[in-house]
């Protein structure tokens, strides 16, 4: 290994080149852009619907109980559309988008055959897996921010902005409201790390991108249904979507951290379990596709 190795001085920073390439590749896909487009459209639909509904002066949601959280407050303050948008997309649209991207991450490369060329490049199996997970997490963040920013823009266009009332009834300034909105977006993005790890694990099991996406989304729907069945309440605290809507507690004064920390802990647990499973599977797998 003398000659060629002496010529190549390798910087440890170069290893990040794959992450950059992965981000570029993911966000240049039509499918990724279409998913983000759908996510951006949800707050627009909610905003327009609320605007039409309340055109006659009545308040939306008929005083609460109906529709996603915070929807009745939107007419008073457009900022609430951010919270409503996230509450409306978190149960299904957001995790479905993550499931598609995570499920396809390795299985899609395998079915296209590009996986073998990445591995002989050599990307390194652990490095490639970490890069894929980091990219899916980046997608979680971007997807959440797309919903939040779209909601903020639509909210600002269609409704007044200003100071707002928390769930606990206290008033906070618009600036502080924006900070809370950003915080909520981050918590929502973090809530998706469990599905992301699950999708990545499924992605190591098959050489078909479509099968991996469908399985991940199917699992998501199943778990969401299980979470609604009262007889299974003993199981509920271990289901990854169970504490998802706890982000609303960030709108209390003072903030209720209880369910929020339970949620983040549960996501970390899922990420650890399915991340390890994905690693064990992917580093020992025969790549024949």
């Amino acid at each position, binding site marked *: *290994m003398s000659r*060629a*190795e002496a*010529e*190549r001085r*390798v*910087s440890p920073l*170069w*290893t990040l*080149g*794959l992450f*950059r*390439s992965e981000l570029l*590749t993911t966000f*240049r*896909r*039509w499918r990724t852009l279409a998913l983000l487009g759908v996510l951006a459209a949800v707050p627009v639909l909610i905003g327009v619907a609320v605007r039409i509904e309340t055109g006659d002066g009545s308040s939306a949601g008929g005083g609460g109980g109906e529709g996603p959280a915070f929807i009745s407050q939107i007419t008073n303050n457009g900022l609430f559309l951010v919270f409503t948008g996230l509450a409306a997309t978190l149960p299904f649209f957001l995790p479905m988008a993550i499931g598609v991207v995570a499920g396809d991450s390795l299985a899609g490369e395998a079915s*296209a*055959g*590009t996986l*073998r*060329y*990445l*591995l*002989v*490049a*050599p*990307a*390194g*199996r652990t*490095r*490639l897996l970490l890069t894929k997970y980091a990219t899916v997490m980046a997608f979680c963040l971007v997807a959440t921010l797309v919903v939040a920013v779209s909601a903020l823009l639509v909210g600002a266009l269609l409704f007044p902005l200003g100071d707002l009332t928390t769930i606990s009834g206290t008033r906070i300034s618009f600036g502080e409201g924006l900070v809370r909105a950003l915080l909520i977006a981050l918590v929502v993005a973090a809530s998706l790390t469990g599905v992301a790890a699950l999708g990545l694990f499924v992605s190591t099991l098959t050489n078909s991108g479509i099968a991996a996406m469908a399985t991940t989304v199917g699992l998501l729907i199943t778990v969401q249904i299980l979470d609604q069945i009262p007889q299974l309440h003993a199981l509920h605290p271990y289901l990854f979507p169970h504490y998802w809507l706890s982000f609303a507690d960030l709108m209390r004064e003072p903030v209720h951290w209880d369910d929020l920390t339970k949620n983040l802990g549960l996501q970390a647990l899922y990420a650890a379990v399915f991340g390890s499973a994905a690693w064990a599977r992917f*580093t*020992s797998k*025969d*790549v*024949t596709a």
Partner: protein
Amino acid sequence: MGEASAGEPDGAHAGDAVVATRALTKRYRGGQLAVDGLHLTVPEGSVFGFLGPNGSGKTTTIRMLMGLIEPTSGTAHVLGRPMPRSARAVLPHVGALIEGPALYGFLSGRDNLLRYDAADPTADPRTRSARVAAALDRVGLTAAAGKKAKAYSLGMKQRLGLAAALLQPRRLLVLDEPTNGLDPQGMREIRTLIRALASDGTTVFLSSHLLDEIEQVCTHAAVMARGRLITQGPVAELSAGARGRLVVTTPDPADAARVLKEQGVADVVVADDRVTGEAPERDLAEVNAALVTAGVRVRGFGVERASLEEAFVALTGEGFDVAG
């Protein structure tokens, strides 16, 4: 898989060989024994032809050499290090085209290469675009570099796959049927390219069904059938294995046949003015001198080598059906 440090000493028993396998065996999960006790030695600096009928285990062997699949038993050393354990250290020095190219259809040819190059942690990002441009130029794709890969023809994809193998200076190139889908000019260019790379000291490991192609570019070859290695060695020896025949063209065939038999030539056959026989071990100049001394008028005298194709069919059998 495993990460061996770059400074680890070479495997002691691997010697000068660029690829050395010992009893390498792969049984797929379905139970298919694809490679069976393979002892393969690829000398440094050779252009090594890897031959075998469909399904004989060539691609499976290459996958094991590249660390894509784990051998069921046996060992494989590439550049003196064990695979797949030393993949991170070995593979940056290896360019590979395995079972045809695989590309990101929604990326341009150039972006495909940029991505594959970024996957290599030893590739310098400062020289990346220059190296990509050089690789594209080497396979004649510069004009089509901006086109989306899904709009490439079969041969263009194959060329792009080759370009990916040439992104860095390599010590070993592993090419699984590299001229598949190429036009005649493309095939010639690839052969010229392989010769040029070989003269720079790159070892080329080439699997192909095109025997005249192997005969033209390879210095060494190995023949597989049903997962087993049948023979390996310098190409000249392989085709000589099906020994060449001495051919004498003469207006005096009867006399010539008599003299040749006296000279120890076996299996002498006379057909019109051609007298042929198994080439003897001794110096053919003496045989020729004996003919002339005996007054036989000789028009032509020479040895017809068996082609590699004949040698190949003799080794692997005539049958057309793929072994199950």
